[in-house]
């Protein structure tokens, strides 16, 4: 619990004269699921590739379990299990042989461990079939199996839900949560899908144009900066709107109903007045801003996905 699993300091990548990643710094403590959120092309994949040593940083460094990925690659990477983009496997080999292949590259992975991770991802029945016969979901699970083979303390998954059906996404999510909670594995996931991050992560970092523009806990994120707004659903919207405006309340007429920017106490009063005026009130809801709205706010309306 002392040292963070991952430390990134001043990570910068230039390709030619183009600045792809600009001075990125963050840490991921043990057992945390960190979400890396940003529109496509913001630099998520490049950052992840630098974290696993597939790309060389122009400046800055990544420390995994205190080992520099640039200077102590082998010691650093042995703590990492990763899927970078799609889990591309050798299609002409069986799932089992794929796992044997990766097991041979790390000292100390026993045949028992291969069987164990196979069971863990639920591929026992098909593990000896060729990967070409696998569905996308099965390939994803095999991808998770190869990433866990050597008992990493850091799992890095780049767009892990790409191409998975809703059931598969849910399965993966539950599984990752269990890993972080039960085994203390830190997980870094990247995604451009907000709703998914909201459900999966403890903390999110938002990246845009190669810069980390914000890092915060997901629950702070959801409740932060919430101005209180309520939605009235009424029988006669126009009449009600006029009445509310008379009270000096800002009213925003939307398709769902009337949105008013007042606190909870005032809502009760407003309701009473509406009812007195003979307007039927069907419902009153607090309006919550979704992560998506906030994201759009922060990134200046940059289109997503």
């Amino acid at each position: 619990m002392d040292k963070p699993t991952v430390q990134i300091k001043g990570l910068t990548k230039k390709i030619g004269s183009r600045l792809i990643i600009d001075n990125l710094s963050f840490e991921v403590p043990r057992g945390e699921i960190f979400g890396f959120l940003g529109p496509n092309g913001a630099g998520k994949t490049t950052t992840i590739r630098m974290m696993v040593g597939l790309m060389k940083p122009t400046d800055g460094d990544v420390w995994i379990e205190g080992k520099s990925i640039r200077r102590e690659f082998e010691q650093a990477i042995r703590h990492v299990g990763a899927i970078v983009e799609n889990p591309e496997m050798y299609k002409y080999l069986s799932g089992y042989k794929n796992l044997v292949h990766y097991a041979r590259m790390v000292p100390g992975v026993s045949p028992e461990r291969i069987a164990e991770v196979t069971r863990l991802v639920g591929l026992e029945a098909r593990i000896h079939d060729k990967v070409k016969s696998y569905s996308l979901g099965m390939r994803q699970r095999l991808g998770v199996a190869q990433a866990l083979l050597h008992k990493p303390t850091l799992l890095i998954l780049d767009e892990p839900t790409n191409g998975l059906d809703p059931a598969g996404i849910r399965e993966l999510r539950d599984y990752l949560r269990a890993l972080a909670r039960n085994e203390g594995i830190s997980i870094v996931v990247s995604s451009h899908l907000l709703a998914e991050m909201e459900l999966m992560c403890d903390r999110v970092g938002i990246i845009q144009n190669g810069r980390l523009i914000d890092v915060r806990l997901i629950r702070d994120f959801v409740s932060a900066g919430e101005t209180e707004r309520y939605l009235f659903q009424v029988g006669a919207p126009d009449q009600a709107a006029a009445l509310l405006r008379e009270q000096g309340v800002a009213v925003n007429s939307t398709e769902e109903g009337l949105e008013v920017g007042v606190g909870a106490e005032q809502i009760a009063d407003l309701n009473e007045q509406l009812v007195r005026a003979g307007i039927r009130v069907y419902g009153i809801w607090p309006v919550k801003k979704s992560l998506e709205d906030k994201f759009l706010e922060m990134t200046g309306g940059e289109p997503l996905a």
Partner: protein
Amino acid sequence: MLNLIRNENMKIYNRLRTWVLIALLVLASILLAALSQTVANHSNQDWQSVTRQQVEMARPGLNDTDNLVKKSSERIVKIGEYRLEHNLPPEDHQLWGAVRDASGLLVLVTIFTVIVAADIVAAEFSTGTIKLLLIRPVNRTKVLLSKYLATLLFGLLLVAVLFLSSLLANGVLLGFGGAGSPYLLLGADGHVHERSMLLHILSVYGLNSVSLLMVVTLAFMISTVFHSGSLAIALSLIVLLLSNVLLFALHNYDWMRYYLFANTDLTPYLEGSPPLFQGMTLGFSIAVLCAYFVLFNGLSWLLFTRQDIRS
């Protein structure tokens, strides 16, 4: 390192393509054996009279002013007489001769090994598996070396397959009767020596494999640098197939002595026949070959260990 090579072997030999190539090579050596058998049957004169004719034709050359003519005549005469005296028929239309001639199929071995070499790095990039391969606690130099060694092992396997299948095919067709006959060599002392035929044939295969090694190394380099298997196959085969044409067309230029394929055939040096260019020696050719070898592998290594993986 051993584990890495086992991995590469697993990836080579679990593919149908590899076994098709091996089967094709076996088939080719059987076909060649059958073909040369039918040709040999047409010229079925007894060997003693043929040898006697050759000796008589070469005899006037013994006094030739040209040293080279003199030398080759001397070899034909002395070895021919030795054969007649000791009743040792020439190997040409026997088992060993046929196995020796099958070394011509090493071109096929080269092409097949190039196919594997061209793919072994490029395919990891084109399928994206390179990303999962390079995030292991193994440095890139070792990964590259294991791929190169696995490729060479495959080439070696094909050479062995060619040797054994042509030995068996010709043995079945011609009989294993001549298997014990020695290889005759005219020593520097002017006497004929009997040498092991097996060693001689193996050395023929070995010498012919020099060009195999160089072409495969070239293909491996192109595969690594350009990440394109088809480009690697196309370029290295063009280079291989045009090598003799180029040599012939440009043989007036002295700098052609530094051309790779002017140096791959080391047999002239060992047999004492004249080299392609005046003044070329065994040492020179080996130095040129080493330079190309270092150049090709150096380029592969530089790019593979330094490049960013973006595929």
